[in-house]
Structures are given as structure tokens and as C-alpha cells.
């Protein structure tokens, strides 16, 4: 399968990239890792007239400890996150997800920014960032703006980014003391999209839950938090019943589509099971000194 022709641009700076986006409009596509865009081009299901390759822009790939949050450049490769000491140590949910995205070779090219900006409900980072309550920094012709992750995913493959805006950084809040988080994913085989996955971020005190953020993967058209499941936990003792109630709430509020990965009924029940497992792991990590 061979892609169609296109004009290739390789800007050296974010400003130059944003300028190109502004000038070329909807027929230009950003080329980051390219592992969603290029396959679509090879099947001629995507035929952008121009590609703006931002791999050459130096200052978009970094993992910085910024005090109360981790600042990650949008072009940071998945493999860098997967092997980053600070992520492994203090962001276990991000580490859980990092190992399960596609396969090791794809993770050498795929980027955090591409994964989020693509707003594919099947991607793993949306749920993780929803559970962390991250902030996404976009840069457009008139400067940068911060977008809270809850407002970032707008539609099916639709983010809040304007056509002439580039995602440049993701800020992940450092989990508070006695909080714990986990990402649990079920896929048919290595490299497949999730049948379902749950990202759970809890704060626990005295055996009960004081705060909860839960993101779900590939069980709705638009990545969103499982607010019903969160409500079932917050303010309650984390008993088996409360955990089961949270699982049931998530299963009821998600909106999966039937496909080769399973029926709607099956995906709902898997969501229930995975949310429960993620909650239990998050609890263990919270009691174990937090992170």
C-alpha cells in the first residue's frame, strides 16, 4: 500500500509549524510519530495535501520535574516515557499504560502529544490524563493557552485544538500523599486496541476514599471520565461493596460500540471488572506510601 503525493514541510520551530498550519488550513496535517496517519495514508483513506513534520523541532521532547507537576513535551516518544525513572517511580499509572501501547517498535516513534491530539477513543493516554487531571498546553498564532483535560476531548477524533493550534506540552499533577493510581487494560493480543481499559486515581484516608478520578478507554465515542463510578467511591469506605458499585456504575455509564472486540454487553462487563481491579491496585499503592 502506497500513500498518495503531498507537499512536505519540516519546520525547525513551533512558531514556524503554527504559521504553516495557519497558512495551509485544513488540508495540512501534523506529522508527529505518524503511526496513525501514515497507515491511513497507505490505504488512501487519508490524502492530506501537505504534511508538517514536527520531528525536527528540538524543544518539544523532554520530561521535566516542575515541582507540583511533571512537564512532558508533546513530541516525547512513548518509549522515553516507558523507560523514564521519574515516571516509573512517581507516576505508576502512566508507567502501567506506557508498556501497553501498541508494541515496542511503535513506541519508539509514537508520541504522547500525537496520542492525545488524535483524540481516538481507543488510545490509552486520554483515559490516563483524565484520571491525572492533566493540563494540556496548546500554541497557536497568538501564543499559548492551557486546556484542562476534562475540556480537551470534544468529539469522535475531535479535540478542543483549533485547526491552527499545536499541542506542545502536557502537565501531569504530582499525585498527593496517600493517593494511588493504576491503569488496567484488556486487549485481544499485544498491539491491539483495548477491549476496555480503566485508569483509576484515588486519594485514600483512614480506609475511605476522599477523591477519585476514573478514565475509560475505547468504550465511548469521546474519551470521558466515569463520573458515576467516581461518585460511588468518594466519601465511602473502600469496601468490596463500594468497589463493586463503582464497577457497576462505570459499566452502566459507558457507551461501547459492538465490533470484533466484543458485544456491547461484554464490553460493559469487562469495564466493570477492570475498574474494580484498577481500584484495588490503586488502593494498594495508596496504602503503600502513595504515588
Amino acid at each position, binding site marked *: 500500500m502506497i500513500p498518495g503525493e503531498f507537499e*512536505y514541510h519540516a519546520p525547525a520551530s513551533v512558531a514556524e509549524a503554527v504559521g504553516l498550519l495557519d497558512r495551509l488550513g485544513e488540508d495540512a496535517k501534523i506529522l508527529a510519530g505518524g*503511526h496513525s496517519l501514515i497507515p491511513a495514508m497507505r490505504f488512501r483513506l487519508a490524502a492530506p495535501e501537505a504534511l508538517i513534520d514536527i520531528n525536527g523541532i528540538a524543544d518539544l521532547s523532554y520530561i521535566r520535574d516542575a515541582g507540583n507537576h511533571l512537564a512532558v513535551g508533546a513530541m516525547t516518544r512513548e518509549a522515553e516515557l516507558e523507560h523514564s525513572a521519574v515516571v516509573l517511580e512517581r507516576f505508576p499509572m502512566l508507567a502501567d499504560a506506557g508498556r501497553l501501547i501498541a508494541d*515496542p*517498535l511503535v513506541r519508539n*516513534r509514537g508520541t504522547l502529544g500525537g496520542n492525545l491530539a488524535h483524540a481516538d477513543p481507543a488510545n490509552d493516554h486520554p483515559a490516563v490524563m483524565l484520571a491525572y487531571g492533566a493540563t494540556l498546553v496548546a500554541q497557536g498564532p497568538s501564543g499559548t493557552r492551557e486546556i484542562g483535560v476534562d475540556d480537551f476531548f470534544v468529539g469522535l477524533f475531535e479535540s478542543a485544538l483549533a485547526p491552527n493550534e499545536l499541542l506542545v506540552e502536557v502537565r501531569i499533577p504530582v499525585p498527593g500523599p496517600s493517593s494511588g493510581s493504576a491503569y488496567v487494560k484488556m486487549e485481544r493480543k499485544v498491539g491491539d486496541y483495548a477491549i476496555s481499559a480503566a485508569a483509576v486515581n484515588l486519594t485514600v484516608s483512614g480506609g475511605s476514599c476522599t477523591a477519585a478520578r476514573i478514565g475509560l478507554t475505547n468504550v465511548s465515542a469521546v474519551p470521558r471520565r466515569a463520573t458515576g463510578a467516581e461518585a460511588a467511591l468518594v466519601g465511602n469506605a473502600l469496601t468490596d461493596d463500594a468497589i463493586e458499585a463503582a464497577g457497576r456504575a462505570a459499566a452502566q455509564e459507558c457507551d461501547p460500540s459492538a465490533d470484533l472486540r466484543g458485544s456491547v454487553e461484554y464490553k460493559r462487563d469487562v469495564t466493570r471488572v477492570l475498574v474494580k481491579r484498577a481500584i484495588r491496585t490503586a488502593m494498594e499503592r495508596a496504602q503503600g506510601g502513595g504515588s
Partner: protein
Amino acid sequence: MSKHTVTVTVNGQEVTREVDARTLLVHFVREDLDLTGTHIGCDTTNCGACTVHLNGTAVKSCTVFAVQADGGTVETIEGLAAGGELHPLQEGFWEKHGLQCGYCTPGMIMTAKELLANNPSPSEDEIRWGISGNLCRCTGYNKIVEAIQYAAEKLRAQESTEEVVA
């Protein structure tokens, strides 16, 4: 549409060619540079038969444009046996019957090369997850894992002798 001149150091040798923007790196390596050891096995970035090293990292060359390699380095299977001496991985695959039809082998070896560079003594599980982006239909993977373990031991042995010598 847009033609581009790319200069790439391939297996240690600098080459300059004219390419279309849309030329995939795998076709550039196979057709423009006649390095046919890198193979094509799918159209959805699943099989890994096209794995090469781009700027020192193992990538699936069917999902990268040749123009993106401009100014960089590419290493393919043909560049492994430096000076006629087989790389420990090539030796391992031969010794342990890590291949049958040979079609996935170049990609498998290039992936294993990066795996061992990052993790000199990987466990069986780490090897299996490390090559999970490379499909093989003939071997059932057991002997590929043994081949990589063989190479890991040999590389570690070489390391320690070099330390002694250095």
C-alpha cells in the same frame, strides 16, 4: 509533487538520493539502495519484518518517510556483520535455529539488537515482550528467545573481556 534530496549515512556509508516526499523508508532502502535484506510483510505496521535502526532506534521502516531520514543514520541487517565477522545475534540465530524461512529474521535481529543494547541480560519474559512487535509464522518463537539469550551471554562475555583489556 515535491522532490527532495536526502543524504543519509547507511550502514556507515553516506549516500545521497532524490526521493519523492511520499517514498517510504522501506522502499528507499530496498529499491533505491538495493538493500533487500529489509522485508515487507504487512500494510498496517504490525509485522516488524521491515525493522531497521533510524538514528540509533529500531523503527518499522514501512511507517516512516525516507525524507524523514535526511541527515540521519540508518542501519540495516546488511550492516551488522562488520568486517566479515558475524554479530553475536546472527551467530545465535544460526546456532539455536532461530529461523526457518528467514523472512522475519532481519527485522527480528534488528529489534533484538536494540533490546540487548538497552537490557544486556533480559529475562525470557522481557525478550518475549521486547520482540512482540515482530511476527514470526514459522518458529513458534521458542528458539528465537534462545538465540537472543545466546547472543546476550556472548555480548556480556565480550564486554567483560574488553573491561579486562581496557
